[in-house]
């Protein structure tokens, strides 16, 4: 029983084949077999969302999905966000608005926000908080994450973006 099987899925645009036991969780496959170690593991009760990846157009917690369930799936991780060395608007937003500190929740936060902004390009602050409730952060207190997502939303809508944390200029010393 529980013989290994081949599972094929598309990972950040690349066809990927892995050999797994049925019990292997997608997060472990991504990290240990695909060496995409951006998605993290922060709990074993499916609460924290650090393992969030985009899966067939949905945000899923890859710790609560078997890799065998990913047969034929489109999977996107934080490693697939930047294109041609250019940061995605969300990555830029998290940097500009100081939306991370230790960085452990950030890959999951980014991937959840990525799907959220696809579904709702102009969310209110309250909507961002509600629709990102599946992602825990120990460092930021969430305030700057909300600002970061708003920054990215503005940029993706083609509006001018300005960080709410401007660098001090020489004459403000």
């Amino acid at each position, binding site marked *: *029983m*529980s*013989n290994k*099987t081949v599972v094929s899925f598309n990972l950040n645009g690349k066809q990927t084949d892995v050999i797994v*036991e*049925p*019990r292997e*969780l997608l997060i472990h496959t991504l990290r240990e077999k695909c060496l995409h170690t951006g998605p993290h*593991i922060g709990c*074993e*009760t*499916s*609460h924290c*969302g650090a393992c*969030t990846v985009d899966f067939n157009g*949905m*945000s*899923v*917690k890859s*710790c*609560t*999905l*078997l890799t*065998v*369930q990913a*047969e034929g799936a489109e999977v996107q991780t934080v490693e697939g966000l930047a294109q041609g060395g250019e940061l995605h608007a969300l990555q830029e937003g998290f940097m500009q608005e100081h939306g991370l500190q230790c960085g452990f929740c950030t890959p999951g936060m980014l991937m*959840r926000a990525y799907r*959220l902004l696809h579904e709702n390009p102009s969310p209110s602050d309250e909507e961002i908080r*509600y*629709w*990102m*409730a*599946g992602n825990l952060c120990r460092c930021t207190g969430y305030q700057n994450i909300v600002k970061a997502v708003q920054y990215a939303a503005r940029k993706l809508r083609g509006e001018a973006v300005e960080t709410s944390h401007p660098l001090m200029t020489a004459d403000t010393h």
Partner: protein
Amino acid sequence: MIPRPFEYHAPKTLPEAIALLNEYGAEAKVLAGGHSLLPMMKLRFAEPAHLIDLGKLAELKGIREAGGEIRIGAMTTENELIWSELLQTHCPLIVEGARQISDPQVRYRGTLGGDLSHGDPGNDHPALMMALDASFVLMGEHGERIVSADDFFLGTYATLLEPGEIMTEIRIPTPAAGTGSCYAKLKRKTGDFATAAAAVTLRTSAGTLSAVRIALTNVADTALRARDAEQYLQGKPLDEPALAEAARLAMAACAPVADLRGDIDYKTAMAGEMTRRALTTAYARAAH
């Protein structure tokens, strides 16, 4: 974190799934959204030797209206419930309930049928379905049977589902126009199971209540109807004394277990308070 080894099956049709379930019997578990089962397997509370994944069965998905009923495939996800225009228009109680279940990622995977079949008194859909007078289609080797939500829940993690049966569809009589409804849920934080919650549907006629259903979440070993409170309210205006008595009768039906969410007295009192709030809001939403 690491489940015990098992064999995985991904049937393409419902008969195939049922045949597999019969072949492996008590060794097998049905995998739906996997957001109750896999967490239990990761903690080794559940150790099935075979998982039968229903994820490929498109026939178990979808929300439609037929014959005065709303029919929802058991594998329909919470997120699909939330964004269904049919439910938003004709059965907003499900939408309001689903929005209070877990978090976005879990709602992309967790299904209505799984929430019900799990039989956890902490889950929200059991009480919602009782308040909506729903029934469930259970499919087995020898065909289907239809059971009422009121009868389905036998105990903690125990339901009328027999070995070899799969819940395939949830049927809800389309609520009459003007029906008021509310799901009032007390929880410690987003994504938590209820400390106590109340689901209410009601209709009014000439200033009095003409039909009331009240169901409570997580204040007994199953979801339960507050039947004494319902009977008491029948034909009465929803004034302050009626609310107080309905809350008292709902509390009398409770038998919660003490845990980190609170002791028996607190949960019981909160069930009364949630009943009061759900009644008040449902009444305000009803056509008068």
